[in-house]
């Protein structure tokens, strides 16, 4: 059973990093090893060589639909909680941190339990919804606007707090999700890393 998440034609096998076992199974006896999980969640583990090119359009459509939905929710948040000029951009910070938490949960589920998930689920939810929901450009402009407006303290706080919140969110969400599904895995006789 291949484990494609998209139609990437040229999967780059990732050389194993020194000492760090790939999550998702180096000791899974009697089961075919899944392809190693790459760093980039949008590209995913490559499918078996040469997926048919016609599978590319559904992937792009799923990404596009998800992205439209994600962008709409982000815009809705900024309409509900607008940031006055010069104020600290909490809304975008919370949006980004929440999206990073979502990505941590999604990727942990996809790599630990939903190995047979529909092929379009990751492109739709990960690349699409969460990718369209979170934003780097608005963040960069927010920091720059605060600097320009003579608020270097707030600019630095936004720069650092967003980063810390995002990394903490994705790390905690990923770890908690893996921990939460572990009992299920052991009941089905599969081991986790």
């Amino acid at each position, binding site marked *: 059973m291949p484990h494609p998440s998209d139609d*990437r034609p040229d999967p780059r096998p990732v050389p194993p990093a020194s000492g760090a076992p790939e999550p998702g199974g180096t000791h899974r006896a009697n089961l075919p090893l899944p392809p190693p999980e790459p*760093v980039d969640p*949008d590209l995913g583990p490559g499918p078996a060589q040469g997926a048919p090119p016609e599978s590319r359009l559904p992937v792009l459509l799923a990404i596009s639909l998800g992205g439209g939905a994600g962008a709409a929710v982000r815009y809705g948040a900024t309409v509900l909680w607008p940031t006055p000029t010069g104020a600290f951009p909490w809304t975008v910070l919370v949006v980004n941190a929440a999206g990073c938490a979502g990505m941590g949960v999604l990727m942990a589920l996809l790599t630990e339990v939903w190995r047979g998930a529909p092929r379009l689920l990751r492109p739709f939810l990960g690349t699409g919804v969460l*990718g369209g929901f979170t*934003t780097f*450009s608005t963040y960069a402009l927010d920091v720059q606007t605060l600097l320009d407006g003579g608020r270097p303290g707030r600019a630095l706080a936004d720069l650092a707090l967003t*980063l810390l919140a995002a990394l903490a969110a994705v790390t905690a969400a990923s770890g908690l999700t893996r921990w939460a599904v572990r009992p299920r895995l052991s009941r089905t006789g599969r081991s986790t890393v």
Partner: protein
Amino acid sequence: MNWLLVVAGGMIGTPLRYLTDRAVQRHHASAFPWGTLVVNVSGSLVLGVLTGALLTGAASENLLLFAGTGICGAYTTYSTFSYETLRLAERGERTAAFANVALSLTAALGAAVLGLGLARAVWGG
């Protein structure tokens, strides 16, 4: 109307990120997420230009909603950036994880400044 502009922009920006990411990643064999870096830096540059154009009166609010909030907002991403950083750290590639953060932040911020400056140079203000 505002919602339509943002959704339409989001539907364009997101596949654009995927295609850009793939095109960049195809050209090197390392695990370093150059694709997302290129996306976030280029998106910040364009949003800088758009914001500058709005400030100088060369762009409308509607254009900003469509191309800024919609396209650039969805084209750039924090979730993929943070997950890739986490993956690098989990694989023991601390230096690469740190470099990804440092490069992304400084380059995107620099691109935003550059974009604003370009817009002011072109449209005055």
